[in-house]
């Protein structure tokens, strides 16, 4: 997945090969991760797609089924992976992930500690941020979930940058071997204040911690225990509002939202433009945007803190 491996890096010349992980794109809200295998076929409501048709084509190609339906084959990225991975736990999405990576000041070469691993959504992005010279040490107390995460990291090609450990960070803290070595720490735990003393020991001078909690009571308790040894304590929430667009023909006389019959479509086809094949006619139509009706109201609070400089 990461361009640090030159054989995997996308380019005009790089084509899909046996064993590659591709993201099969049906619609923007319907995608699947598939491993390419010479003799396999991919089935969906558009028909059957032979993997052998895919091999040799560039990523980003449109491919057809036996019934003439089509999908696109995309190269995996951490963003796409977050949207297709199997949820063993609730995951973090791009808004929180991107903010965390920036605020933790992660760059190639950093050492990050994470707990809990969960489904590995954030972990994959952490790996991208610190590769190729850095490393992510991630811990989860659930043995099976840790194993599934390890498998996923193999599948997506980030396993050289991620080590998954089975450990109860709330109860035992992080392993002593990391004392004073972590550039950043990320906590997604039910009782993060129990892990904060250990986090303090692990962080380098001026290191940064982030704790993600869905409930404000957890945030309050975490901030209380952070005040002792941390400074610059800030709590945020971040959400993404998405917009949909529609082409509106200026000659339609109905003033209300319906417009011409051709423009009343159910949500699924909104990303395809009605009057297909029609070239733009700037005199007759405008494109309008409005927020999507469905919106996420809350994911969790992100609390950041910097280790106090005591020397």
């Amino acid at each position, binding site marked *: 997945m*990461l361009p640090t491996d030159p054989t995997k890096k996308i380019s*005009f010349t790089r084509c899909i090969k046996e064993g590659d992980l591709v993201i099969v794109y049906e619609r923007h809200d319907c995608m699947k991760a598939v491993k390419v295998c010479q003799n396999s076929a991919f089935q969906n409501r558009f028909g059957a797609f032979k993997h052998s048709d895919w091999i040799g084509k560039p*990523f980003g190609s*449109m491919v057809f089924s036996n019934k003439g339906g089509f999908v696109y084959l995309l190269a995996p990225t951490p963003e796409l992976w977050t949207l297709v991975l199997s949820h063993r736990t609730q995951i973090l999405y791009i808004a929180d992930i991107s903010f965390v*990576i920036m605020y933790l000041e992660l760059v190639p070469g950093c050492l990050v500690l994470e707990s809990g691993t969960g489904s590995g959504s954030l972990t994959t992005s952490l790996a991208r941020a610190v590769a190729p010279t850095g490393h992510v040490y991630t811990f989860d107390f659930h043995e099976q979930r840790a194993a599934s995460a390890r498998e996923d990291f193999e599948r997506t090609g980030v396993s050289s940058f991620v080590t998954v450990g089975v450990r109860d960070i709330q109860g035992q803290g992080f392993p002593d071997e990391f004392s004073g070595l972590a550039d950043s720490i990320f906590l997604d735990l039910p009782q993060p204040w129990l892990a904060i003393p250990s986090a303090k020991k692990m962080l380098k001078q001026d290191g940064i911690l982030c704790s993600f909690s869905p409930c404000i009571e957890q945030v*309050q308790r975490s901030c209380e225990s952070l005040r002792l040894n941390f400074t610059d304590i800030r709590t945020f929430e971040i959400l993404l509002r998405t*917009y949909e667009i529609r082409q509106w023909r200026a000659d339609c006389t109905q003033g209300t939202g319906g417009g011409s019959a051709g423009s009343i479509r159910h949500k699924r086809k909104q990303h395809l433009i009605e009057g297909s094949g029609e070239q733009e006619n700037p005199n007759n139509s405008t*494109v309008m*945007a409005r927020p999507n009706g469905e919106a996420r109201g809350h994911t969790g609070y992100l609390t950041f803190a910097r280790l106090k*400089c005591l020397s």
Partner: protein
Amino acid sequence: MSQNNVQLDPIRNAQVTWEGCSVLLDINDGDRLVFARLTSGSTLKIGNKNCSLQPLIGCPFGSLFQVDNGKEGPNLSRVIPSPEDDVQEKEDAQISGEFRDNRAIVDDNKAQCLSGEDIDEMRRQGATGEEIVEALIANSATFEKKTSFSQEKYKLKKQKKYAPKVLLRRPFARRFLRVDTLSLLLSMGNVAANSDVLVVDMAGGLLTGAVAERLGGTGYVCNTCIGDSPYPMDIVRIFNFSNEICKSIVRASVSDVTSQSETSEQSDQLESACNMEIQSNEQKSSSVSMEDISLSSENGVSDLILEANHSPVNKISKSHKVGEKASQETLKLWKENGFSSMIVVAPELDPWSFVKDLLPLLSYSAPFAIYHQYLQPLATCMHSLQVRKMAIGLQISEPWLREYQVLPSRTHPCMQMSGCGGYILSGTRTATNASSQQ
């Protein structure tokens, strides 16, 4: 410590500041943020006094300083904070203070007995900031009547004025484009080591610098311009980049990248434009070393106010050359492989007008993210990309960010909030040729 030694640590630069490095000064817990270059001559204006920044050289990032009233005037001295052992005491007091209220407190500006002259006199006699604050509290007729929360707020306010603290921080460019917006652009643009990222950066170099930081010295960030004049990249200098990272920041015009064998005339023109840019950057760095950022408005680069520093900068750190013209080999590589992704911050331009020419430069299945302060231009761009099937997975997003005040019994979202972080159009380039769509 010689600068060369310090530069060996490539991870997050050095732990300790050096003469000539750029820093971010956090005054009074985020109330005011100032970029500064640490030299023996540079100063910081706090209140109405100038303090020398000399004491900050050679200190670890994260150190705290306070303004002391010395005989020669105010100076900055290092403070080692002790863990708060009076936290429990404070909390007990807060619970008992709950029964007070403000029904009898009249705001007539007569509560404080000390005058401005009294305070100046105290300063002249060498009183510390804390002592002045204690004196103000003792001489306030209404202080005892306040609730404990109100008392704490009053004390903090006086401390900020009479005992301001300065936190020495690594510069991290996240004050112009709203931080969450910039972070989304970097994620949606799949910025990682070894990538070749094409950027259109009209944010003064903020985007270019942020991308270069995440590349860590590998791959390239190609700063391209629409038209003939390259965009300024002054902000990149604030990042304290090592040589490797500086080398990864290159410039190329759209025509450079699209046609390999360029007429020498065109490439000469751009070359001289680039050279002028680099020259003027170097000139600027000798006269400017302080940049003040106002927190209240978040409108992007227009907030950057460059203040000329009157003290001469003797030894500027050897500014590594940033933004050199991309070599012919690199251009060839990009033409053969395509760019890994593209990020655009061009708030004054109509995106579709140039995205249609830039998108073909991206590798197949490469992601892109286009920022704009206005929604409409992105809606039109999205529609055009859809109709021509040039991209899929198109989405227009608007980031929403709110900060919280978290204090015992006083937790709530902050009163101030940024109204808009702009809009981002993201998507992935398809392998279908545009020509087949006609």
